[in-house]
């Protein structure tokens, strides 16, 4: 494969730190203008991978290619990408202007051009007037924006971001997520974004690369990963999920019949399972509909349960249900005006319906 049309490709990358496996057989292709998130728990290798792309770490085996050409021997300052560091890494002995203009000073651009470019960047990150401030006079969010401007002024082909919003408080973080997404839309630069916050990944990315222990678990759009996780890990890491264990009772042409603790559940045939296999199942709380007896027949699956807790979460309400002696599940319902008439209480027996499509099956 020539990868000539792929902006960035990593081919079978592996890296160890002594005995610790940081990255294992990692392959990825990133297209021009994409917003890709490397998502995973701490220690999964996502930051290591970002640093390998940037040139701060080397691969033990494998290759990194840009438009088909290997860049693995290039020093960081020769690669057409820039990084926004986790703790901003702003130069404390320089002003905001000098920080942002740093790369342009190195390129020996003229004073006028530098001034013009810095002004444009400050407008982009909405920090006009902050030219003479020092990093120690800025708030976290402002520092982050300076770090962003400093990286973007170079017009890199790829912007690498290492958990840039990690140390900001929730409100500012959410605001910056939207701002970052807007900037990316506007500039059409490829973003590779590392985070452990799955909500952040869902909100911002075009594609998510889910990682665990140095390996790729799943790659897909936020929607596909959310609705069709391919493993127990993916199901549990992204969003909330009900996890069940069962045995395949029957394999039909287009669906699987799985027996779970006495219940019979139907799922679309997405994995090659044989009768007798032990499988894991996942169903999102939002897909568990509390219905009346009649309605439930229109769903592919139907189970009964008893409400043991009702928790109000603002815009949703969660029902904690006991299905059987070994199984508890969570169902989520949006609060609308009609749902007032539902008024489900603790102790109620309810019928839950969910489609075959929403029941995810993994061989584990």
């Amino acid at each position, binding site marked *: 494969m020539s990868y000539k049309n792929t902006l960035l490709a990593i081919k079978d990358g592996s890296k160890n730190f002594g005995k610790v496996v940081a990255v294992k057989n990692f392959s990825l292709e990133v297209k021009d203008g994409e917003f890709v998130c490397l998502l995973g728990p701490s220690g999964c290798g996502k930051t290591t991978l970002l640093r390998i792309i940037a040139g*701060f770490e080397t691969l033990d085996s494998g290759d990194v290619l840009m438009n088909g050409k290997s860049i693995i021997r290039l020093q960081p300052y020769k690669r057409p990408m820039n990084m926004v*560091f986790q703790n901003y*890494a702003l*130069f404390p002995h320089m002003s905001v202007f000098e920080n942002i203009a*740093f*790369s342009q000073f190195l390129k020996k651009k003229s004073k006028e051009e530098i001034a013009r470019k810095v002004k444009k960047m400050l407008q982009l990150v909405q920090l006009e007037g902050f030219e003479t401030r020092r990093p120690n006079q800025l708030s976290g969010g402002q520092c982050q924006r300076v770090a962003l401007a400093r990286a973007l002024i170079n017009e890199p082909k790829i912007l690498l971001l290492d958990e840039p919003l990690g140390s900001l408080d929730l409100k500012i973080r959410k605001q910056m997520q939207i701002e970052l997404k807007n900037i990316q839309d506007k500039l059409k630069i490829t973003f590779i974004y590392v985070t452990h916050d799955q909500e952040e990944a869902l909100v911002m990315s075009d594609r998510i690369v889910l990682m665990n222990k140095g390996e790729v678990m799943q790659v897909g759009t936020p929607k596909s990963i959310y609705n069709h996780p391919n493993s127990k890990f993916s199901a549990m890491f992204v969003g909330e999920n009900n996890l069940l264990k069962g045995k395949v009772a029957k394999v039909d042409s287009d669906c699987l019949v799985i027996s779970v603790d006495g219940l019979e559940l139907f799922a679309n045939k997405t994995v090659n399972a044989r009768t007798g296999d032990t499988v894991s199942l996942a169903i999102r709380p939002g897909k568990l509909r509390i219905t009346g007896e009649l309605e439930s027949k229109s769903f592919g699956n139907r189970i009964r349960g008893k409400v043991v807790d009702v928790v109000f979460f603002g815009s949703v309400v969660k029902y904690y249900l006991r299905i059987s002696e070994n199984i508890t599940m969570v169902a989520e319902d949006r609060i609308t005006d009609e749902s007032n008439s539902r008024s489900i209480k603790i102790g109620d027996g309810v019928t839950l319906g969910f489609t075959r499509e929403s029941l995810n099956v993994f061989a584990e």
Partner: protein
Amino acid sequence: MRKGKTHIWLLLPFWIYYILFFFIPLGILLTYSFWLTTPRGLVPTFTLENYWAIFSKKLYFILILRSIRIAFIAAIICVVVSYPVAYSLTFKYKKMQDFVLYLILISLFSNYLVRIYAWKTILGGQGLINQILQYIGLTKEPLPFLLYSPTAVIITLVFIFVPFTILPIFSSLQNVKPELIEAAKDLGANNFEAFYKVTLPLSMSGVVTGFIFSFILSAGDYVTPQLVGGTTGMMIGKIVADQFGMRYNWPFGSALSYFTLFLLALLVYCLIWILKILKLRR
């Protein structure tokens, strides 16, 4: 609790000590520099005669300038030698940091005089350096300028004061977090540019401190020149010490001291000012 009053009490011992044993003696010394010494003893007056006396003999001024020159060269060499040590300790040999720092500190525990005598032996005609040079055949006779010369004084001073320079430079280098260097490289700086534009400015305060330590301590040193300086390596410290010893001319000794101190302070101030102009300091 009233705002911030406690710390004044905590600082009191410090202030008492310094006022009693530093500022007051310095003040007394300054006063002496305006008095006169006569066969009958010290006469309290106000006169500038002692200061004029400095210029009466060429010797004094020559010695002051030579002391400043020797101290300056020694301090520069100290900094130039210490910086790479501090740098590699910080960035390359992190695991050995504590060990090497202890070694440096321990070298300070060894007796000052013993160290100078050690250098007298090493630099001497039968000393280690000459023996090696003659052995490998580079020289036929012992090099004369290795001992009892300004060179000997500079070499000895460097080795004595390098620990004083390594420590402040090392300390200021701790401020340079590796990610700052990575950020500089990411933005297009090669190794040299990253050092020059990020590491050096941020560690400059340590460099200046180290330089001032070794410069001022060297300029006033009078034991080293006495043991390894000979006549060509004589420094002002000896003359000052003599005034308070054999010659019993305290006013003149004070005037010499303060005048030298004034020149040293002026020089240091100029250096800092030059660095600011060159934008090497923030």
